[in-house]
């Protein structure tokens, strides 16, 4: 399968994520969209890794799967982020009884 399929899919996912962050007001949805962007990037990493694995694998056998391992890193980070992020959202709900991101703009003054 040509690699641009993956690129298009990833770009679409990323754009959906960006637009979601921009237009949605619910903190949870925004959060999910961020995850979506992260995974779009992960998808690209895996795709490119597979694409280059043969060429690189000939000279550097261990380097061929570096990018895929890197995806695990970002997944772990994403998991950590989820735990922190959800905790923040829970706290936010406790304080203002809403998960609307635009509601919480008190830094302004």
């Amino acid at each position, binding site marked *: 399968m040509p690699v641009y399929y993956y690129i298009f899919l990833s770009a679409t996912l990323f754009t959906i994520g*960006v637009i979601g962050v921009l237009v949605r007001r619910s903190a949870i949805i925004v959060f999910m969209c961020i995850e979506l962007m992260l995974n779009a990037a992960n998808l690209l990493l895996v795709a490119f890794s597979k694409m280059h694995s043969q060429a690189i694998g000939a000279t550097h056998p261990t380097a061929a799967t570096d990018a895929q391992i890197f995806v695990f890193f970002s997944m772990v980070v994403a998991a950590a982020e989820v735990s922190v992020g959800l905790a923040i959202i829970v706290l936010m709900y406790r304080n203002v009884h809403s998960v609307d*991101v635009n509601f919480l703009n008190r830094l302004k003054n």
Partner: protein
Amino acid sequence: MNNILHIAWLIPFLPLVGFLVNGLGRNQLSKSISGIIGSGTILASFLLSVYVFLSVKDGNTHVAHYFDFINTGALKIGFDFQVDQLSSLFLLIITGVGFLIHVYSTSYMHDETPNNFAKYFAYLNLFVFSMLLLVLGGNYVIMFIGWEGVGLCSYLLIGFWFKNDNYNSAAKKAFVMNRIGDLGFLLAVFWLITKLGTTDYHTVFQNVSQLTSFDITCITLLLFVGATGKSAQIPLYTWLPDAMAGPTPVSALIHAATMVTAGIYMIARSNILFTMAPTTQTVIAIIGLATAILAATIALKQNDIKKVLAYSTVSQLGYMFLGLGVGAYTGAVFHVMTHAFFKALLFLGAGSVIHALHGEQDMRKMGGLKKYMSITHITFLLGCIAIAGIPPFSGFFSKDEILAAAFSSNPVLWVIGVLGAVMTAFYMFRLYTMTFLGNFRGTDEQQHHLHESPGAITFPLIILAVLAVIGGLIGIPEVFMHGGHRLEAFLEPIFRESKKIQGTHHLSHSTEYFLMAASVVGASIAIIFAWKNYKDYRYSTEENTGIARVLENKWYVDEIYSSVIVQPVRALGGFFTNVVERGIIDGIVNGVGRAVNYGSRQIRLLQSGQVGTYVLLMVFGILILFVIQLFL
């Protein structure tokens, strides 16, 4: 080191000691002790000066180097004293007249508190110290130290009674005008250093030939600017009449006999430079003569006894500069000496009068004092005759020498000079007649207390009167007596080089007799005229009109200076303070601050607190970066 150099430094040092003792111990010393210290140190200096003078007379001249004042690779200025004919003559005048005036002061200032009395003598001693430094200095820098030092003492003594704010203003005026001259002096010194690398007299005079005539002209003109400040010539003369605010002995010592002649000393000292700058000499002659006439006209209409004498001093100094300008250096120095005698005498006599009248200085309220103060009267009369130039009194010889030299330079100078001399005779005898002849016009109270002054006052008067009468005899012109001009012979080594350049042109004997006769006759007529006019003077409050009013107001020179110089300078200061400083410079600085403030206020609006906005901006930012990266 020669014997004379071992004691030369003591001459200024003793007055300095007197200054320190009187100045630091002014709260402890009694009046008699501070008087003795003050006068005693000057007497000792005088005796040493006599010794030095005698040894110089035997041809014993030296430059003494005491220590390095400034010694860097690029500039070397030693603390040097030059002991020669010219300086030793001035030493005698300064310490001699100075001593008499100190003695006089012990009585004149006796009403002061012990503290002020000691302070007065401290200042006076400091003055003598500075003046001696000025005269003894072996280079222009040491001279300048004394030069500014005497200015300082003059400032301190004019403002001695500092409760009166007018006196303080007069003191300030004197100092500032002197400083204007000093700037000229300093620039001349810098010029010398730049061109010759030294300020030592002997090196400078030996290397004059290395200077271009432009350099010499500029240097001498700048030095002359210095002299106009110190010696009260046009345009810087207006401080001297105001300086009469000081105690009268101070006027006698500083503002008549010694300090104001510093300019003449300086030019006589640098005579070789001036001789090589004919342009400067012309300027000096013209300014000197103009000052002599201007001051004489003002003196005609003054009513304050000290003001008349002050303008007379300015006028006489003008004559000395005329002498310097026409190359009659000996004549100028001679006139300095005789002037020191008779002008100190006149001032001290005026002081005696003022003392007797308890501070009254207005001649319109005097008169008839002849009866009450015989010694003062006689000595004063002798002084008046001397200054009027009647032979064989001292003023005749010295003034005549200057006028004769002026004639041989340009007869026009002589004509104007004689005119001034006639005016001198007139205003001096106006002064004399109004003060001593006629009837007393003061209050009964004053008349009741009129008395001759005590011995400490009359003693200096007598000595000075004797000197004023016979002082001229050391400079008898050749026409009267061959070899009679002892002073010229004595000063010959100083002016030798200048003489060589100038050459000698003798007037014929008949011309000289004619010149003398003309000035003597003119002065005599003026004396009789003054006597006739003022012997029955009545006090009237009528205001003067026309030219008399202009003269009474001193040609309005002070007012002109005030509106042309002082006010504009103050206005400029105000403009800088309020407009440039606050408006422009601070405006720019504060403007930068305000711009930053305003800018941040505007940019702050972007921080809306809406997460969405931030993200949107971020996305836009990334898109722009993409575009730049991919397409540019």
